[in-house]
């Protein structure tokens, strides 16, 4: 059930990318898609009543959550940041050239 809610968030992002006609909105959509996937990865690795995967000095901790998805998501967050930075740079240049964020007005190339 919670997985489906997470995928619903994913679908909102996909919908935004496919339907909206504004560059900033498309970037927002890409961001939402990334959040949804990161959340999904962590949900998959969660263990009920688990503890964070950090060892303590004087006690033995049982029942930790899965550390592997956390490591993967850390990588995925960085990749998302890299993509966002590059796409914003391209968006700023596009704005500079065309004077608008509206994709329908940025149509030099034929489909």
């Amino acid at each position: 059930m919670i997985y489906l809610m997470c995928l619903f968030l994913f679908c909102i992002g996909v919908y935004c990318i496919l339907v909206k006609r504004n560059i900033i909105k498309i970037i927002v959509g890409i961001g939402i898609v990334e959040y949804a996937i990161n959340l999904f990865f962590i949900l998959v690795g969660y263990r009920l009543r688990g503890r964070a995967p950090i060892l303590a000095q004087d006690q033995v901790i049982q029942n930790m959550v899965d550390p592997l998805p956390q490591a993967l998501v850390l990588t995925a967050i960085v990749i998302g940041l890299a993509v966002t930075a590059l796409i914003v740079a391209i968006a700023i240049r596009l704005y500079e050239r065309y004077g608008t964020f509206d994709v329908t007005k940025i149509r030099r190339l034929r489909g």
Partner: protein
Amino acid sequence: MNYELIPLFVAIPLGSAFLVSLLGKRLKGFSDAFSNLATFSLFSLSLLSVPVIGRLRILVYKVGGWIAPIGICMVLDSLTIFMLITVNLIAFLITIYSISYMERYTAKWKFYTLFLLMLAGMNGVIVTGDMFNLFVFLEIASISSYSLVAFGVEHEELEASFKYMVMGSLASSFILLGIAILYSHTSSLNMADISRILVERGSGEILFFVSALFIMGFGLKAALVPFHAWLPDAHPSAPAPISAMLSGLLIKALGVYALARIFFNVFGMSAISSSILMVLGIASMVLGGLLALGQDDIKRLYAYSSISQIGYVFLGIGMGTNLGILAGLFHLFNHATFKSLLFLNSGSVEYATGTRDLRKMGGLSSRMPVTGYSSLVGSMSISGIPPLAGFWSKLLIILSAIEAKHFIFASIAVLISILTLAYYLRVQRLAFFGELKESMRGIREVPLPMRVSMISLSIICLFGGLLLIPAIGKNFLNLATEVLVNGNKYAQVVFGSMK
């Protein structure tokens, strides 16, 4: 001792990219010399590993000394070697070409840095044996290609790059979601381990859903037909060496190779996925060919033709029979050579005349003989004129379709081949033959490095057919086919070699 070779395929381009970006701005000529050195050493390294793999069949490298499901492993088998040779050979010839061509752009060292990073990404995708690692290197290759498409920073380039980038990030998201679901199902990320677990559990709805996600994701990267919209914008907008790189290699390394590896070796090919791949291949073949017919921009025409030829590759590989896979892989190699040759030709034409519009050209062969005749070789090879390499691979694809009783697909493939001949003859007639236009009197042949690279590529196109003779191509083509035909046995082979 041979184990030390494997990480070098990634480490050499990465290290040289860092060095070029550190020193390239300060020392004149350093970036040219060093990038060529790097690609040349990569190419010789991949040639060196052919006899090793011919003897041992598979090498597994444990990064950091951790055994496979715990750490990451790199796998070097015959299919990997096949892709590595294709990628590094073409990349080496393209770097030679860029020495002169990229003089027309500013900030050459940035170009070389991004180029080497893209190469590192592709080699990383090919060499890896881990799902998530594949995703990471796929992102390196994609992100550098997004910025390379926008390298000229004009209107069209930025727009094409934006479109490409949106589509590319969507594709990456699908792939990552697929990996997440797969991880939850199997609790492993290593390809061989996943394959072993999936064989034990059998297939189900999860596998179906993940396959759909991967077809969407990698299909977007490979520009299969319902997902092809970005390619005809992105490939022509890039500088010519990058168009050659994108069309010749990137869509194959990220799209075809990754899809084939996952579907054959990890999931195991089923009848449904086989027919889906074939139908998508046929659709790309037909639509790409038809759209190419009406183009006047020479690079745009080549880009549509890429979609069409990728369709052939998918038809061959999707068949799943021994002959079909062999033909598909051979066509992949051939397409890498002749499509990069053709894009380099178009770059030379643009370099000399300053236009890409076919209607403004004419009679260029008389002024630029090397470009003209190498383009003739490339066009004839891609349209399947006998003794050239392209003929043999297309023939084999059609034969394998007949062998597998797909008569309709075979006849469509023949028809599209004729269509291909038609639009390439049109290019030749408009651009290189006929009478020379008045405005084109003053043009000259392109500089030496560009000629060297075009001539070498056309020699490969001329004699590529020889690879089919078992004595020459045995370690190269046939063993690569064997890896895909073996399917799920991949897991046993990998784990067997790790002990």
